[in-house]
């Protein structure tokens, strides 16, 4: 994708980007961890007020596709699926316990983590 948002000659047209494209599961397994690392999912030093050289913008799907030699549609699908696939339903269930503990901690006048990660969070 170019800076003006127009697809470059090697990239699919916008309509194809918006379509129902199902990524090959083997390709997903092969590149999942790498693409999540290069994307915005796990952010480090992205804040806009940081000085040049310190601030690190995440790579776009088009940039990742170019770096890995993949189709941008596959990169987008691998990223979106992986973002949802990282934590299973048990993490959502643990979320309720976290909020109970965090709000109780605040109500009791302290800013301490009563949740403490227990029970240990799950991860696929």
């Amino acid at each position, binding site marked *: 994708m170019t800076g003006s948002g127009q697809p470059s000659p090697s990239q699919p047209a916008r309509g194809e980007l918006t379509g129902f494209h199902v990524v090959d599961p083997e390709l997903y397994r092969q590149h999942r961890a790498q693409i999540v690392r290069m994307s915005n999912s796990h952010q480090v030093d992205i804040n806009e007020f940081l000085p040049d050289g310190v601030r690190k913008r995440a790579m776009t799907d088009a940039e990742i596709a170019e770096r890995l030699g993949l189709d941008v549609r596959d990169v987008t699908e691998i990223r979106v699926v992986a973002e949802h696939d990282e934590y299973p339903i048990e993490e959502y269930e643990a979320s309720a316990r976290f*909020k109970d503990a965090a709000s109780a901690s605040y109500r009791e006048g302290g800013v301490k983590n009563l949740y403490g990660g227990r029970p240990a969070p799950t991860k696929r």
Partner: protein
Amino acid sequence: MTDVEPDWQMVKSEVLSGALKRGAAVARVGDPDALAAIAAPGQAPVDLLPQVRSIIVLGGSAPRAGEWHSPRPEVMETVGTADRMAALGSAVARRIEDELGYYALNVPTATDQDDKPFLDFTAAAVISGAGSPSLAGPVLHPEHGFLYFTVILTSLPLPADEPLDAPACPAPSCVEMYDERGLTPCTDVCNIDDGGCLGGQIQEGLVIGRRYDSNRCRSRVYHYWIPGYQAVLDRVLSEPDAERRKMMLYGSYFTRTMWSITYSNVSQGQCFECMRVCPVGAEQRALR
């Protein structure tokens, strides 16, 4: 006879004061080129509106003090009213087009084709001085703290405001706490190394090395919403026992999730614990 050049400062003042009267807590104007300079490729204002010459950023609709102080986190799970700012943005855009005759586009708050935002609202707020990013993530205004934002792109050539002189985060009390304990309130309550989403250091009054697990944050902010719905379906579709599938689909988690999706206008954010403990704007949340 030639057209008289309008007093753009006065036009700006009228547009922004109209937004403030209609409920915005903060109204600023940003330079589209300044946003384009820090935006990811494909996310510049000109990619959405080729005629853009100004960015109007409106912030407001923060949760009520009583909601922040409720002992029930479920209350905060159902007061994420970002849509009120989106509606205000649409009204301002309509006024610009109907009364002033310039293009105005209220940037959609839904997701774009690739499950990403249409525009970086944080960056828009930063370049216009409507707030600054925080260690926790949300944009913070120095006086109001946490706010929802809407962004309007327009061909009106309004004079741009400057970014804040200093970021609202870290607050002085957070710097003190960090110096004592190596933690801030937000990284204490939701620590990335202890089952949470946030981490980072403070060096010379600046947040550095900020780490954020957006996928875990999703499981909390969209707890009973689209991602939770997908996570349940993933489990249901791989469950061979028909009776167990029924228990999952008719159970309390999936039922509440479906209600939340139905009432999506009040369920846009379902975790506020890092903001509940944030001292920026805390005086706005302290009543009798």
